[in-house]
């Protein structure tokens, strides 16, 4: 089933878009490392090729921007070697999640601080969760 050139290009675009974002998943990276993909030269070349997603005109399609950071780290052999360890992947995952929660927590703290400030001036407000802004 031969597809036309534009469709082929579209498919390639989509598959590369998907794949590069998969790199944001540390578990997937661990999977790749354990199967030896990260040791193969063609794959390393491919990772280098994927760096084009850093350009703004391509980056705007990324839903998971964490993948770009992972992609940059993957250019280093040391990082690729370390990913074989499950502990390493777990650590990255944890840190990633903590970082991900950072802004939410910051916002929550701010709202709490704001609520505490207003407390003495008002009647004690009902215990309410901060509404999503």
């Amino acid at each position, binding site marked *: 089933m031969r597809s036309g050139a534009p469709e082929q*290009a579209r498919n390639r675009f989509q598959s590369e878009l998907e794949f590069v974002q998969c790199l944001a998943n540390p*578990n997937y990276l661990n999977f790749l490392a354990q199967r030896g993909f990260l040791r193969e030269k063609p794959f390393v070349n491919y990772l280098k090729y994927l760096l084009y997603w850093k350009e703004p005109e391509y980056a705007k399609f990324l839903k998971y921007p964490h993948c770009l950071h992972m992609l940059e780290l993957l250019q280093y052999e040391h990082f690729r070697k370390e990913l074989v360890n499950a502990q390493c992947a777990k650590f990255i995952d944890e840190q990633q999640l903590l970082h991900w929660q950072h802004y939410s927590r910051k916002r929550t703290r701010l709202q709490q601080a704001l609520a505490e400030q207003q407390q003495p001036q008002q009647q004690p407000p009902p215990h309410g969760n901060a509404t999503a802004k």
Partner: protein
Amino acid sequence: AVCSMAVAEKSTKERLLCALDNLEVLARELIEMLALSRGQKLPQPGEDTQVLELLVQRDRDFQDLMEVAQQQGKVHQEMQLLEKEVEKRDSDIQQLQKQLKEAEHILATAVYQAKEKLKSIDKARKGSISSEEIIKYAHRISASNAVCAPLNWVPGDPRRPYPTDLEMRSGMLGHMANLPTNGVNGHLPGDALAAGRLPDVLTPQYPWQSADVSVGMLPPHHGNDFGLEPPGHNKENEDDVEAMSTDSSSSSSDSD
């Protein structure tokens, strides 16, 4: 003993000294002759006159030479004056040289800095993005909780800042593989991404695959550089045909 006066290479000093020597010799001869003539007859009658004449002649030569020497002295003085002038001019030129060098240095620095400035202007211009686009993008990645966790997130929530196994399987790449459907909350152990066969129609189901991609947006040159089989596939499975594999690369890759 007459030293040759016609030789031009001899210096004036030498000639003067030579002439003086001659005079001295002649004078001595004359005096000897006179002394002898006291005692005895002159061996040759005209010899004393000869010597006298020679003497006078030599004296005249000597005088001429002295004049020549004087002239030469004057010339020599002029030469010295001119040499001083030349020295002065030389030092002037050196001074100018120094100033020129300095000026060149200053200009070179200025030009270099100007170039650097132009470079950074260029760089800034290249990286400029409309604020609207940035805001749109920021909204996109935030609203989907891709970069900021949802406010009510607790451990156990399946949402993640990266595509989960479930999302990966639902995508285009995922459909190329035949994946078992076990696991918790869409998170499968890595083994689940096993080899599979290539299906036909692929439809993105999750928004992260970005269905609104324009056809003009092509990936950069993708030749046969990699020679790889994409991950997630069993290497022994020969039925694998990949969009990432080395099929005829689309030559319509115009870079923008």
